[in-house]
C-alpha cells in the first residue's frame, strides 16, 4: 500500500478517506486536520492561553503535542482521580510528557475537592462511577480554568467519543443532550469557561497512530471502571457499521451538527445561575458537584491517600473555590 501523498510505503490506511499515508505524511495530515478544525470552528485565537485537559491517554497527549508544536501557549491540567495504579501510571505519563516538552502542568486531586477519590465516591453515593467521574472532571476543569484565568479549556474528545455520545443521546432521544452536543461549548455565563474539542473529526485509531508515530508514551490500558460502560457498547456498534460502510461515524456526527442540532437548540433554553455554595454555574440552586460532595460527606467517606486530619471536614465542603490553590500542584517548565 502506497502513501497517497508521496508514493512511499504506507503505514496507515484511512478507508473513510480512501487514502493511506506514510508516517511523515500521516503526522502532517493529523496536524493539519486539527489546526483546520480549530480555525474553521473558531475555537480559540493564536494568542489565547489554553488549558489542555490531559489524562495520560493517547488523545489528550496527542492533542497537547500538536498544540505545542504549533506554538500555542498550552498548559496541561491533570485531574488525579485516585484510581490506584491506573491513576499513578496516568499521572507519570503526563508529568514525563510535560518535562520532555518543557510544558507547564497543573495537577488537581479529585479527592481534595470531592472529599473522596473516585473509587470511594461510588460506594458513598451509589452513583455510577463514570457519571460521578465525568461530573467531577467537568467541574474541576472549569474551576481550575477560572482560578488560573484561562479563557478556554481544550479536551481530547475524538470522533468516536462524539459519535458514541450522539448515538446514545439519539437512542433515548435526549433533547437536552442533543442540543448541547457540540465541538464548541460557548461561555454562556461569566463563570462558565469555553470548552472546545479540536480532535472531534479524527478517529481514535488516528489519534492512537499519531501518538505511536510521534513516540508519545501514553497509557494503553483502559480505566478499570470503564469495563462494560454503555459508551463502549455504542462505540463497538458504530465500528461495526464503519467496517461495512467506511465514513459512517463521521457522516453521522457531522450531518447532525450541520443539519439537526439547531432544531434541538431552539427547544432547550437553559437559564444558568451561580451555585449558592460554590459560585459555579448551575440550573438549580445548588450545583450537582456540591450535591455530590455533600453525599460523600454524609456517607462519611474517607480520602484514601491524603485524607484530612481527624475531625476536619473534607475539602469539598470547605469552600470549593478557595480550596483550589491548596489542591493544585504546578509543574513549571
Amino acid at each position, binding site marked *: 500500500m502506497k502513501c497517497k501523498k508521496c508514493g512511499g510505503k504506507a503505514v496507515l490506511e484511512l478507508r473513510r478517506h480512501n487514502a493511506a499515508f506514510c508516517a511523515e505524511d500521516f503526522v502532517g495530515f493529523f496536524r493539519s486536520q486539527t489546526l483546520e478544525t480549530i480555525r474553521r470552528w473558531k475555537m480559540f485565537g493564536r494568542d489565547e492561553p489554553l488549558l489542555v485537559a490531559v489524562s495520560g491517554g493517547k488523545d489528550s497527549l496527542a492533542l497537547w503535542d500538536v498544540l505545542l508544536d504549533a506554538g500555542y501557549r498550552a498548559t496541561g491540567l491533570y485531574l488525579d482521580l485516585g484510581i490506584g495504579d491506573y491513576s499513578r501510571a496516568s499521572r507519570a505519563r503526563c508529568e514525563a510528557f510535560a518535562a520532555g516538552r518543557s510544558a507547564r502542568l497543573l495537577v488537581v486531586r479529585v479527592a481534595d475537592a470531592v472529599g473522596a477519590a473516585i473509587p470511594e465516591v461510588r460506594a458513598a453515593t451509589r452513583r455510577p462511577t463514570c457519571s460521578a467521574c465525568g461530573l467531577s472532571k467537568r467541574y474541576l476543569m472549569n474551576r481550575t480554568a477560572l482560578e488560573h484565568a484561562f479563557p478556554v479549556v481544550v479536551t481530547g474528545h475524538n470522533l468516536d467519543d462524539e459519535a458514541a455520545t450522539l448515538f446514545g443521546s439519539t437512542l433515548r432521544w435526549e433533547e437536552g443532550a442533543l442540543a448541547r452536543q457540540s465541538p464548541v461549548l460557548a461561555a454562556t455565563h461569566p463563570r462558565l469557561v469555553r470548552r472546545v474539542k479540536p480532535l472531534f473529526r479524527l478517529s*481514535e485509531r488516528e489519534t492512537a497512530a499519531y501518538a505511536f508515530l510521534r513516540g508519545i508514551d501514553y497509557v494503553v490500558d483502559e480505566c478499570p471502571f470503564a469495563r462494560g460502560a454503555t459508551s463502549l457498547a455504542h462505540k463497538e456498534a458504530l465500528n461495526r457499521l464503519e467496517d461495512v460502510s467506511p465514513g459512517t461515524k463521521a457522516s453521522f456526527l457531522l450531518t447532525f451538527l450541520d443539519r439537526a442540532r439547531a432544531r434541538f437548540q431552539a427547544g432547550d433554553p437553559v437559564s444558568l445561575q451561580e451555585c449558592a455554595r460554590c459560585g459555579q454555574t448551575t440550573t438549580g440552586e445548588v450545583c450537582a458537584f456540591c450535591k455530590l460532595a455533600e453525599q460523600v460527606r454524609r456517607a462519611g467517606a474517607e480520602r484514601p491517600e491524603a485524607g484530612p486530619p481527624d475531625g476536619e471536614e473534607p475539602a469539598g465542603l470547605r469552600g470549593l473555590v478557595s480550596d483550589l490553590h491548596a489542591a493544585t500542584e504546578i509543574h513549571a517548565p
Partner: protein
Amino acid sequence: MRVILRNQGKEVEMAGRRRVRELLAELGVLPETVLVIRGRELLTGDEVVREDDVVELRPVISGGRATR
C-alpha cells in the same frame, strides 16, 4: 507467529504466514479498533506477517461514560 492481544491480556500462536487483514478477520477483530504493530512499525492490511514475526494488536478504543 506470535500475536499479542493487549486488550485481552493474552498471546496466541498462529502457524503460517498471512496478510494483516486476514489475521484480523481470523481473530474476529475489527480493523478500526486496533493498531497492528510489528517492532517499531505500523502495518497496513495488505502487509504480510511471517511465521517468525511478533505482532501486537493494540486497542485504540477508550473511555467510559455512564448513561445519563
